């Protein structure tokens, strides 16, 4: 039986090839066929997850709740030092310097990334801004969000911090951060589905050992990761509880 691996559509495109390399590594470890299925859209991916088409997924924290609490997935590991933080940025020459300087009617550039969008909205609340008094334009990538700021199509943009940090220096220097989240306990996780539970123990062991092994290190590097850390069930539940307090 071929298993299906997928990755939340929010990873930086520079790491696309890394996931193919990881998939090859994975097949060797498990000695079984694994197909990597990638998506452009969060909704299309969620639909396939719900239909039981995915066995292993590098999930964004927002989807972890559905995967773990509704669909019986289990968290195998989490990436080290890769908390998901959100930045709200504006043009560098904009007179507004903090979120509270933004006023009703502002135009926000965002992406379909549910984590970043949710956290961005929470950080706007302190300025009495919400979906009813701001307008949104959704873009396919953080590079495009930055472009929308620079060419004046938007007043402020929501970025995954990692995406903001990966903008070219030229572009980033023309923007400034109004606020940056510091939550530290919300991050992606590698979660394994019910059809694949028999491989869980072996796979966790191999994942944790990747950084010890030169080949494994190469694979990690190509995905832009430092290594994996254990995440126990209660830590997962805690993260999901925390996210539950942030969504409506």
């Amino acid at each position, binding site marked *: 039986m071929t298993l299906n691996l997928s990755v939340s559509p929010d990873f930086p495109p520079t790491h696309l090839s890394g996931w193919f390399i990881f998939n090859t590594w994975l097949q060797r470890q498990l000695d079984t066929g694994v197909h990597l299925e990638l998506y452009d859209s969060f909704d299309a991916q969620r639909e396939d997850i719900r239909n039981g088409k995915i066995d292993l997924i590098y999930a964004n924290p927002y989807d972890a709740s559905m995967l773990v609490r509704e669909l019986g997935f289990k968290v195998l590991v989490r990436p080290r030092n890769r908390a998901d933080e959100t930045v709200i940025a504006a043009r560098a020459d904009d007179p507004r310097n903090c979120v509270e300087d933004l006023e009703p009617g502002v135009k926000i550039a965002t992406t379909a990334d549910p984590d970043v969008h949710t956290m961005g909205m929470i950080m706007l*609340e302190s300025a009495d801004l919400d979906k009813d008094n701001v307008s949104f334009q959704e873009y396919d990538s953080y590079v495009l969000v930055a472009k929308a700021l620079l060419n004046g199509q938007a007043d402020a943009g929501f970025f995954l911090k990692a995406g903001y940090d990966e903008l070219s220096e030229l572009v980033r220097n023309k923007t400034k951060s109004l*606020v940056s989240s*510091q939550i530290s306990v919300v991050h992606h996780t590698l979660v394994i589905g019910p059809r694949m539970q028999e491989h869980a123990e072996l796979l966790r062991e191999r994942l944790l050992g990747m950084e010890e092994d030169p080949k494994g290190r190469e694979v990690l590097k190509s995905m832009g990761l430092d290594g994996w850390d254990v995440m126990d069930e209660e830590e997962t539940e805690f993260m999901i509880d925390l996210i539950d*307090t942030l969504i409506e």
Partner: protein
Amino acid sequence: MSEHDTGSVEEVLIKYYDGTERLAKVVDREVPYPDGKLIVSRTDPKGIITHANRAFVEMSGYTREELLGVNHYILRHPDMPAVAFKDLWDTVAQGKKWQGYVKNLRKDGSYYWVKATVIPNIRNGELVGYTSVRRKPSRSKIKESEALYATLR
């Protein structure tokens, strides 16, 4: 921080729901909510603190050791009306999410406002505790809450 802070210092007797009380120093001085942070704590089903993140430790002015194992009412500010907390406990007891604006008392007697969300933690169908996550409130919501709570005390 708040335009009408006077900096006045008082000793106030705070009476808790469980019959205990303490004489607390209360200073009319606001400490601003830190941008971008979430203040997170967890309690057992009775409201005893079991987890505090760094932002919680920093904002409360207590050490983590002082917070763990004590009742969450250690942060209760005398300006908060009892009905607000009754509503909190009634809501979470039904397994629902509670959201509200809370003025908290720091160890040094000054205060900070939060927008708090409290949810029950369910594990294998059983209630094991509660999680509270606070975020930065807007000035207008603080003003509204001050006015409302003054009428409820």
